């Protein structure tokens, strides 16, 4: 029964995330709205762009992947912007996010240990065993302390409280509950052997080991979190990819790109729909922009 819930949870998690990804990637190309520094521009150190050179369109456009990777990793691994601009919050949010990363690493390690067992790769057994132990312990402690700390800060700081909704608190409490039950389960399985056996059972579709009540509650809650999470804004790890890569760092000019056909479709296929006096809601964007006799005497045609 519990196994079934886990499979369902993982499936829902993956599918909903995928659906979100598809939703955002299939939205129309938006007008350009980047912000500098754009880290793939060779001039990014000083915030520069290809517009700094004369006749930019006549030159090959250079991009540095390294610049982009560095900026991405700084944000992903160190939460650079909060570190730079809101240090007091960083001391709480950074350990919390580190806890999340570590717990993910821990799951991967469990998975690897299970495989090691299944395929009897003796030589890797002990190193992975200790690594799992260390990573798992640190992760649980970090998450336990800092999910609570973030909750307390959200309640006690007026600046955060007055903007927070019930769900903001609920999310933190939910995570805290999952971690707390996890920590209790850990007391019964200090070196994660049962956890590993459980993972083995999941991989091999066999029946899981008997686990404590705490563990059962933990597994149930964790599965519910997995189901709940993709529907919430906690999926910002995914959408961040869009905000940075597809908006703030997206500096692709129409000249020399392949987007023109799509743009023409929007311009001639999409109705403007707005109803202010200077807009005719029944026209498409191209007609609206070129037949602007509601506000002026444009004669241009597209």
């Amino acid at each position, binding site marked *: 029964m519990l196994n079934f819930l886990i499979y369902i949870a993982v499936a829902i998690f993956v599918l909903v995330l995928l659906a979100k990804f598809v939703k955002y990637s299939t939205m129309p190309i938006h007008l350009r709205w980047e912000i500098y520094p754009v880290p793939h521009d060779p001039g990014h150190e000083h915030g520069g762009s290809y517009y*700094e050179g004369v006749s930019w369109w006549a030159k090959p456009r250079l991009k540095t992947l390294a610049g982009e990777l560095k900026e991405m990793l700084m944000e992903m691994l160190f939460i650079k912007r*909060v570190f730079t601009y809101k240090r007091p919050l960083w001391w709480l949010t950074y350990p919390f996010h580190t806890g999340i990363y570590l717990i993910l690493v821990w799951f991967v390690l469990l998975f690897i240990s299970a495989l090691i067992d299944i395929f009897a790769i003796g030589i890797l057994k002990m190193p992975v065993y200790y690594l799992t132990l260390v990573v798992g312990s640190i992760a649980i402690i970090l998450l336990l302390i800092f999910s609570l700390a973030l909750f307390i800060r959200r309640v006690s700081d007026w600046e955060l409280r007055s903007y927070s909704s019930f769900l903001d608190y609920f999310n933190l409490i939910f995570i805290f509950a999952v971690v707390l039950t996890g920590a209790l389960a850990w007391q019964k399985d200090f070196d994660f052997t049962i956890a590993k056996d459980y993972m083995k059972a999941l991989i091999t579709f066999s029946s899981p080991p008997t686990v404590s009540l705490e563990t059962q509650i933990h597994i149930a809650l964790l599965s519910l979190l997995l189901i709940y999470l993709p529907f919430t804004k906690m999926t910002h790890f995914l959408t961040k990819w*869009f905000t940075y890569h597809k908006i703030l760092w997206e500096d692709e000019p129409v000249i020399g790109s392949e987007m*023109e056909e799509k743009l023409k479709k929007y311009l001639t296929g999409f109705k403007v729909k707005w109803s*202010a006096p200077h807009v005719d809601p029944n026209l498409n*964007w191209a007609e609206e*922009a070129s037949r602007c006799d509601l*506000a002026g005497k444009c004669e241009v045609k597209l």
Partner: protein
Amino acid sequence: MRERIAIQDIAKKEEQLVKITLEDLIKLPPPYDKPGMEPNVTEPKPEWNQNYVTELDGYVAIDIPWKPKNKEEEEAMVQKFINGLKKLMDKEANWTFLQPLLLSLEYCARCQTCSDACHVYISSGRKEIYRPTYRAEILRRLIKKISSGGNFKTKFLGDVDLNAKTILRLAECAYRCNICRRCAQYCPLGLDNGLITREIRKLFAQEFGVAPQALHAQGTVKHLTTGSSTGLTPDGLKDMIEFFEEEIKEKTGKNIKIPVDEKGSDILLIHNAGEFLSWPENVEAFAIIFEEAGLDWTLSSEMVGYDAVNYGVWYDDVQLSRIALKHAEIARKLDVNRIVVGECGHAHKAITVVADRVLVGEYQIPRESCLPILWDIVRTKKLNLDPNKNDFPVTLHDPCNVVRLMGIVEPQRKILKEICPKFREMKPNGVYNYCCGGGSGFAIMTSMNFPEFRNKVSSRMKFKQILDAFQDNISPEVKKYVCAPCSNCKGAIRDILSHYNATANCGIHYGGLVELIVNAMVDIEQPYIEMF
């Protein structure tokens, strides 16, 4: 006093939500650290309240009477607003910004990291209604409310009442942000509260037809119908050109013929038409430099073609597209290779960046900034320049639209380092600059008491930066120059200097970049820049 304004208050409170006081504003450096150095804040006239929204902070940006007079009108307003919200979320009606809008609405962690980026919020003494997330949070809650049908779900997501008060205050509040997008640089999730401001403005403009007159009726509409938002007509332009040529002759002894409507030129140079009227020396300096450097260029005298502004970029996608297309059409008819934008920041961004994706096919004519061209001219020594002629302290203001939002950072600095021996930077600068406070239309919005908001609050950080940059030489005897290569920034800085009487008190003057280049030209005897 720092009022604690809750999100709900926008819909509930009868009285003005916040009040600006001198005590709350950020402190200024000497000599403005002493009391009595700046004018006090004024009260809105009581009768304004009849027609205009003074219930936010007492200032009025939207200077058209649009308050509902009775219950029916209020209900109609709410319904119209709901229609507008739906269109913001619509793939066709808002294809232009749907993806960035949805992401910024859905994923805010309410961590408030962005607040410390905002010069309006900080300068005001951290008044809640100017916080970058304030208007965003209201829009977010209203959209959730509408899309969930106003059911119990809104209680969990955070609620705000939707009534006429909310709508009126939200519209005013959308004109308390310069859309400088500095806050978006701070956001760990890459969200953009400046964009949300613009989306709110769009809703009111595109659905209600409501926007400050300076932007809409006297802005884009006038631009498209008379040729320029300044009201300058093609005939008027031609007269001015003659006057410019005479003035160049008088000031520099040079015989320069300003090319107009010359088909097949390499460059179509478009200025902000405000320059023609307020700062002709800028237009003249461009003519001197381009002619001396031997560029093949022309101005256009066709309607719209001699005014680079595109106020649509601040509040309306339809007007943005119309003006951009018109500019492209004029360039196409003149058969030029490229459009070059003069010293006007928002026009830079509008035509090169934001409107890029509404120009397709034959309208996709290359567009670029004047700044790299000017640096090229200085770098390759096409002009004989003597930096000692600019022997006064100079600092540089970075127009957000050119720098943070377009990535043109170095050319203007390289020029100044080359020709101004006493050049010093403001802090912070470059892509992390602060807005002049005139951004997103504020510089040209002069109705009622709005200039007071600009001078006291939105431009205050810039004034502080200017004073800080000149602290080593702050006495009025030393003439100093703030270089602002952007018409609207110049307008805002002109107003700051006059509001705080800083030219008399500190000897601070302002102007563009090309004036400094011409001022350094060896063969011009009289100083081109006059500071008195």
